[in-house]
């Protein structure tokens, strides 16, 4: 299996998760209120009072065969709105 970790703005999470389900993922987990630093600068929770939002951390475990399809579905969204992704190996518990 593969594990994908995505970090992106909270407001785009819904779009990304929908795209992943369409691409065959059977589940996912989302942690909001993630702060951090990336090429887009520092992201804090300070603007949370507006609906601007901090980052979310999306974790998806998938069969390795799905990786390519999910990458194709998600990458354009990360390019458009910002955000990064990483892959690592995993197995069922």
């Amino acid at each position, binding site marked *: 299996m593969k594990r994908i970790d995505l970090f992106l703005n909270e*407001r785009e999470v819904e779009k990304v998760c929908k795209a992943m389900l369409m691409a065959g993922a059977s589940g996912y987990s989302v942690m909001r209120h993630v702060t951090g630093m990336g090429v887009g*600068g520092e992201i804090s929770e*300070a603007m949370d009072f*507006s*609906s601007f939002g901090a980052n979310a951390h999306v974790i998806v475990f998938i069969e390795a065969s799905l990786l390519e399809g999910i990458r*194709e579905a998600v990458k*354009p969204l990360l390019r458009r709105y910002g955000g990064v992704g990483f892959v690592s190996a995993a197995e069922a518990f």
Partner: protein
Amino acid sequence: MQTSLVLQNLLSAPVLFFFLGVLAAVLNSDLEIPSPLPKLFSLYLLLAIGFSGGVELAHSGLGRLVLLTIGAAVLMSLLVPITSFLVLRTRLDSYNAAAVAASYGSISAVTFITAQSFLNVLKVPFDGYMVAALALMESPAIVIGVVLARLSAGVLDKNPDRGEDRLDNEEGRGLRWGELLREAFLNGSIFLLIGSLVIGYLVAAFSPAGVEKMEPFTEQLFYGALCFFLLDMGLIAAQRLQELRKAGAFLIGFAVLAPLLHALVGLGIARLLGMNQGDALLFMVLCASASYIAVPAAMRMTVPQANPSLYISTSLGVTFPFNVVVGIPVYMALVLRFIPAS
């Protein structure tokens, strides 16, 4: 006169709590109002001003001056982004220029509320329907901002250089009107403000006993909650100001001069329409203030090419403190000078 007004404003509880927040940030205190508590206060303030505004709108009715005032407000929310865009475009790319411009066409509810508190202390009356003007200035500014960004960057859209961007190919061409209108009219804070306004109106018109029962929540608590929220705003504005140093003198200059200029235009309109002194101040504040709630959230979704730290930092790090601390009393001095007491 003007000095005493500035002092009176500086020594009011809301502005002092704002300063306390700024001081905490500057001194690097670990004072923090953790998320989502600021959101609680922000939702509360929107609900409360919406409701109260609706109640007063029900009392005043939709007379000629009311409609003229609201019309003028909407007009300003369309014109200000266009003129601001032209100025900003000289130094920024079209995405960033449009996003900043949209902020200045829209309003800052907290600045408006602080101005109301200021009028209350001075015992200068004002009309509740100004809240309706406030509520109706956000959406047009957002729409204009996005349209400007798209028109100005139009060539780019027609010759997409990122061929592999599936999203742009499938749903990204030109304006996404659905998303835009959703951001402009269904943005949570706009929706809550307008919704509460309508509810206040309906309750005042049809079950007036409810108005009284809401009062401890929407009226009595309001001043304290505003102070609490401004403490947080001080913390955030100070952080933003530090970030803005990177953005350079042009934007900082814009963030101070634009509100002054827009306030003067607002003063002219107020005089033209024959508003009373209180309403004139509030109208000036609407014109002078810039959004850091609804517009940034909307711009992030609809103009993701723009850099949020530019449009948030100008409106929240400079224009907001400027208006709250210096602007309001200065505008008031102008009002007292140019608007006849009724």
